[in-house]
């Protein structure tokens, strides 16, 4: 399944991924992703950490209560509003099965809380605008699922995903199928928002 692939073989393996995942539209994800990238360029921007994954966030109890620390600010800069929260969620969906399952359960809550804190901070962006910025970060990794399946086992992206998932070979393929089934609706939501927001 992971032999070097020609285009015709890519079609075969994507068809198999579609069959195993039960998810339609995998072959159109690249077009959808292009739409998302084009659309987020028009979103309002804010100062983002831009690398706000879970390994850059530390949580500990201190005398005054729970405190969350953030490190690694080398990528800070302007970016789409919502993007950092999306990266935090995305960093869970690409790691262990348990972490991905947790993110599937709580991502909606994460977004709601982020939106509420934005409002408290004085930002009055429409919910859909923030949601698209949030989903755009997640969409990168969901698209990566479909791209990874067309690559050889030696490809850096495949090694990275495989290492994060903790499985290889056909198990890795099945894990990609499972995660597409779980998270592709978020990708589809992002594509829908690009059309709605214009």
């Amino acid at each position, binding site marked *: 399944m992971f032999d070097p692939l020609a285009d015709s073989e890519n079609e075969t393996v994507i068809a198999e991924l579609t069959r195993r995942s039960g998810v339609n539209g995998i072959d159109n994800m690249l077009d959808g992703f292009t739409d998302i990238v084009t659309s987020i360029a028009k979103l309002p921007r804010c100062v983002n950490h831009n690398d706000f994954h879970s390994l850059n966030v530390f949580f500990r109890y201190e005398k005054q209560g729970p405190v969350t620390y953030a*490190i*690694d600010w080398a990528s800070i800069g302007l970016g789409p509003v919502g993007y950092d929260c999306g990266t935090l969620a995305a960093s869970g969906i690409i790691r262990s099965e348990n972490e991905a399952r947790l993110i599937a359960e709580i991502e909606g809550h994460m977004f709601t809380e982020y939106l509420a804190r934005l409002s408290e901070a004085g930002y009055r962006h429409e919910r859909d605008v923030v949601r698209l910025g949030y989903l755009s970060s997640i969409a990168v990794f969901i698209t990566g699922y479909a791209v990874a399946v067309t690559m050889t086992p030696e490809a850096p992206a495949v090694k990275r995903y495989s290492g994060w998932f903790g499985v290889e070979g056909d198990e890795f393929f099945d894990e990609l199928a499972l995660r597409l089934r779980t998270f592709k609706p978020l990708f589809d939501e992002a594509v829908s928002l690009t059309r709605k927001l214009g």
Partner: protein
Amino acid sequence: MDFPRTVDEITPEWMTKVLRATNGAILDATVESFSAEGLDGGIIGDVNRLVLVYSSGSGAEPETVVPKLAINDDELRGRRAGLYEREVKFYDLINSQVGLPTPALYCTEHDKIRIFHSFVGRFMAISVNRSDG
């Protein structure tokens, strides 16, 4: 400039001098030795955790520090120079406005040595900007 480029170049004497000079991290204590453990520094940094041993002190001194050194590869370091500078500027210019706890800054010395202190005196990171060679 006179500062460590790699973790092997960090000495107890240099560590003592830095800690004494940075917001009273240590007063009269002296770093006698340390052990180093490599951490995942991502694509831009060589990161280690140093466990410090003091020959004297009150017991309140930082137990560990985390030197965050620019990656020890000339080509990669050159390509990432903007990232080092960006992180340094974050701590200098906007850290206080972010509203999110970050490693507390012990001292800054632009284009030379950056030291970040975190986790209530138990964790510290030193970022050395090597872009100026």
